[in-house]
């Protein structure tokens, strides 16, 4: 097979290998060990195949690559149109990177209905990758909604505590918000006869869409609300802590690691891509919400007695950085926003794995039930510290690069934005180090913690790649930024016109 052939096939492969794996699992007899191994093989294979993308990506080009576009259904006019740019490419790789880690971390902790669990996980992976690769809005919406079902089932079936409440809350919250996006997509289709992103983009920018000017504010909001709930942006965030606390570990990892980025990715691709002028007009209040989210999420995280809720609120704070960076409309800020998405996926994914490892041993997430764990679990404590530092934005680890660029971009857009957001570096040190102190330092206060086993082989295997990625992203961020930067530049191109237009009014 030639490289050109492979390049046009690669996105289909990456997207659907997990689904094929899921089908295989359906046929597989219920032998848990075989099912786990098969799931691991499939997810590792997906990851390996997905590495073809960065390996053969033309770095200097900002546009879409590995494109495949076929007429799928003629009426309505739906295309199987897939492609990635330097932004979505890395989100795909993030997804394929985290899924095998989820398999490993679930190896021992999922012991009933194992088959269904891994089927759901693989279906979820396909849906997530599909979201990032689709350029046809119908296809995009299909994958977008398709992520909901496996995720809600993972929470509802394998969670703990008020799992059904959390699953329903998650489902309804994001489902209702997505309906608005669907309406906007249908409006666009009704006016243009196309679901195709690039077609729509050029039609809009050339003013060929009838009635667009009056509809644009509503269209923008309709897309935005769907994405804002997913991010989640303050004040649409209250589903997140509940969903996380009750979700199984792998569910939390996928939720925080990838699902939330669907929202920020959507903002970047569609809110900025299709409605640059509206994005510009709405930026002040959106940035305000992002700033509130950064500070608010951090302060609420500070006082959480539950480890998972603490991490969940910290996600709200971190994702606020992403939204801030996107709506700063600066090259640096957007580069940083994309980098924070990736970095947060790795480090928060790892934090949830770490929380899950404790839950596995003690069946609680309450911080007060721990204390002094560094003594019985030194290797676990070392990993935890490493990830905490990455999450707190220590230079040379992954969190710093993105946060620094976002803050710098926000500061360039408006000094006040940068200043308010930069307080985040104080808060994050506060809640993370306090969490760490209460969990690991001091003397052991609960007898049952005295003899907790340190990391198992599977747990180490799940954590080690995440820690390595956190270090590599911090030391050699150019591997990522080299591809993100041109993509962001392209994304901002229609934008500079608008900026000058608005400025010249």
């Amino acid at each position, binding site marked *: 097979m030639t490289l050109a052939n492979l390049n046009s096939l690669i996105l289909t492969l990456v997207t659907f290998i997990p689904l094929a794996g899921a089908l295989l699992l359906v046929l597989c007899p219920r032998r848990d060990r075989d099912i786990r191994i098969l799931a691991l093989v499939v997810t590792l294979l997906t990851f390996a195949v997905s590495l073809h993308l960065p390996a053969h990506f033309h770095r200097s080009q900002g546009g879409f690559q590995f494109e495949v576009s076929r007429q799928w259904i003629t*009426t*309505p*006019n739906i295309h199987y149109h897939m492609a990635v740019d330097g932004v979505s490419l890395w989100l795909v790789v993030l997804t394929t990177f985290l899924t095998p880690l989820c398999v490993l971390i679930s190896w021992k902790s999922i012991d009933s209905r194992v088959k269904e669990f891994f089927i759901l996980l693989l279906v979820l992976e396909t849906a997530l990758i599909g979201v990032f690769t689709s350029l046809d809005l*119908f296809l995009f919406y299909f994958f977008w909604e398709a992520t*909901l*079902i496996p995720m*809600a089932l993972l929470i509802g*079936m394998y969670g703990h505590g008020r799992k*059904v409440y959390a699953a*329903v809350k998650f*489902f*309804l*919250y994001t*489902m209702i918000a997505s309906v608005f996006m*669907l309406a906007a997509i*249908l409006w666009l*289709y*009704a006016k243009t006869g196309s679901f195709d992103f690039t077609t729509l983009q050029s039609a809009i920018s050339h003013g060929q869409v009838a009635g667009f000017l009056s509809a644009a504010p509503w269209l923008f909001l309709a897309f935005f609300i769907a994405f804002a709930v997913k991010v989640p942006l303050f*004040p649409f965030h*209250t589903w997140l802590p509940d969903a996380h606390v009750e979700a199984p570990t792998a569910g939390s990892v996928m939720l925080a690691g990838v699902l939330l980025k669907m929202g920020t990715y959507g903002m970047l691709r569609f809110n900025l891509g299709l409605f640059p002028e509206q994005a510009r007009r709405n930026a002040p209040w959106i940035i305000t919400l992002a700033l509130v989210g950064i500070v*608010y999420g951090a*302060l*609420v995280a*500070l*006082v959480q007695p539950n480890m998972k809720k603490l991490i969940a609120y910290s996600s709200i704070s971190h994702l606020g950085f992403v939204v801030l960076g996107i709506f700063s409309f600066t*090259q*640096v800020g957007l*580069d940083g926003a994309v980098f924070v998405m990736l970095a947060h996926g790795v480090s928060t994914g790892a934090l949830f794995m770490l929380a899950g490892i404790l839950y596995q041993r003690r069946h609680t997430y309450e911080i007060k039930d721990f204390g002094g764990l*560094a003594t019985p679990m030194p290797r676990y404590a070392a990993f935890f510290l490493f990830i905490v*530092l990455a999450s707190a934005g*220590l*230079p*040379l680890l992954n969190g*710093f*690069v993105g946060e*620094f*660029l976002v*803050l*710098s971009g926000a*500061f*360039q857009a408006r000094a006040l934005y*940068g*200043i308010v957001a*930069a*307080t985040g*570096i*104080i808060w994050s*040190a*506060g809640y993370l*180090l306090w969490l760490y*102190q209460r969990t690991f*330092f*001091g*003397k052991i206060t609960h007898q049952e913690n005295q003899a907790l086993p340190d990391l198992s082989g599977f747990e180490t295997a799940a954590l080690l790649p995440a820690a390595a990625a956190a270090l590599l992203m911090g030391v050699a*961020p*150019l591997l990522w*930024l*080299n591809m993100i*930067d041109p993509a962001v*530049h392209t994304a901002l191109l229609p934008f500079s016109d608008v900026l000058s237009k608005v400025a010249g009014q």
Partner: protein
Amino acid sequence: MTPSLHLWLIPILPLVGAAINGLMGRRCSRHAVSGVAVAFSGAAFAMALWVASQISSLSLPHLELLSPWIRAGNFQADFAFFLDQLSLLMLLVVSGVGFLIHLYSIGYMWDDAGFSRFMSYLNLFMFFMLTLVLAGNYLLMFIGWEGVGLSSYLLIGFWFTKDSAASAGKKAFIVNRIGDFGFLIALFLLIKHFNTLNFAQLFEQIRPLQPEVAGAGLLTAIGLLLMVGAAGKSAQIPLYVWLPDAMEGPTPVSALIHAATMVTAGVYMVARSHLIFDRAPSALTVVAIIGTLTALFAATIGIAQTDIKKVLAYSTISQLGYMFMACGVAAYSAGVFHLMTHAFFKGLLFLAAGSVIHAVGGEQDMRRMGGLRKYIPWTFWTMTVATFAIAGFPPLAGFFSKDEILWKAYSSPHGSWVFWLIGVVTAFITSFYMFRLWFLTFFGEYRGAQPSSKAKLATEPAAHDSHAPDPHAHDNHGHGHGTPHESPMIMVLPLAILAVLSFVGGWVAIGGRFERFLAPVFDSGLTASVAESAAETGGSTETLLMGISIAAAVSGLFLAWFLYHRQPALPARIAASLGGVYTAVYNKYYVDDLYNTVFVKPLLKGSTTVLWHGVDQAAIDGTVNVAADSARHVSDSVRHMQSGNLRSYAGWVAAGAAAVIAYIIWAGVR
């Protein structure tokens, strides 16, 4: 074309050592661990010496690019190194003193269960500190800056089973982050207006700018924000509160990080940024005021402390204040000179204090020491040199550097007699509390062994937080707590070397050699330089002021001798008669309690009650639930939809999707 010096190796070497000991140290013998730690830190020092030997053949500043690090839009930051006289000096001080403290630590920490972890952290600290010093741009400097903060966090909390140690580490990190917040904003301003953080390009753009005489301006703002960062790292008012608590760490850490090197990073950063400060006179004045006030304020607290390490901690804060006083009057080389001599004598003081603590079985309260000069002569004599040095007795190192600062504070165009006066008063207090420490520790009778020492303890108020002794496991190697004993050779050797340096270290400045060495770095590019103005003020004043500062040092010694040797019962009576004033000083002016009441508690309480319970749960979730409930009431007929059964929801989604597809098909065929 100057040859490449491979400067990057200097920080990387200790990092390799840290990695080896961190990953494999637990499985290796203590000898192997010490070998690795000392070899890699020693190699860094050796390389620094080699670089120093090459200096004459280099054109300074010497730049080296290792590789690009971050590139986004038109912003770029590299792994790039910058060597000039200032960074060379810092390099030698950091790697030299650091190497000696590595040696000392082998003896001090030998019996600790976490020996390899400790050595690994020390090496890690060296990596970050050397990165900070050699960085070619502010962002790389920030890596080192945050990294030394991390190492400090790890080492303060080294005995993490102790709650107070763990809390102190966290406090240090968070307070430093407040400073870093200012530092970062300064960097954003620099990026916004100069579009680079590289020292070379940045300073080239700043050099032609005129001073902002009218007060506020861009450079003033940058200068003030940098000073916020410096105040965090170098423990200046109002961010000094973390440093006394940091004494929870093992004593070699206090010597290396919290006296000799890391805490001087703020001074180094301000000196490195001198072109900015030279053009921002208001910022300079703020630096001078903060430094001067901190020097005095911390010295007064030092008088009343009874823990030997706490006295030294407040003394460090005070001495750092002197360095900022110097920078604030644009006498950067005087500040850096004091930085260097301070690294010698304060490093020595801490190491000697560690040796004292080691000798008396972990005791840190000076009221339970006394008479130790007979038992630990090496420690006594080396500490004596350091005490006379810090008190400012000629011809020891501290005399030269402190006198230089006081003279510049008086004579610089940015200076004032007020700075000088407060500086001299502080010098007197310094001499007093240092000799108080010296007499209490080494003279009189040993008060540790006898159980009857309780009576003597009443001479000064009992500590609120009675200090748990260093959990430094003496019991393991047999020598009991009975008679104080001298430390092993590997600890005494660094003491001796540092004592020599504390003695002669000031002589490098004789005849203005030190200032001339650094002059190319601190050339402000402006017309009126500090040196000229000093020369104008003339020699006789200088001699007079020098005489006054020597008198201050001598009277401090005399007072301490009178109160703590001649009339040892008197201090308690004085303390009693002072009443509230004494209690306030003893309790460090209640600043920690103030911060706790004003900032920490309201923040936690507000976050819990207002944000979490109020906004999140009551307001937002409440609204959502009410909306959901009312929807449920209205749509009674479709209540079976909300069965809570996920599979039925999934069914509804499928049905919805089908409806959508139906609509689309309809729209398409229409």
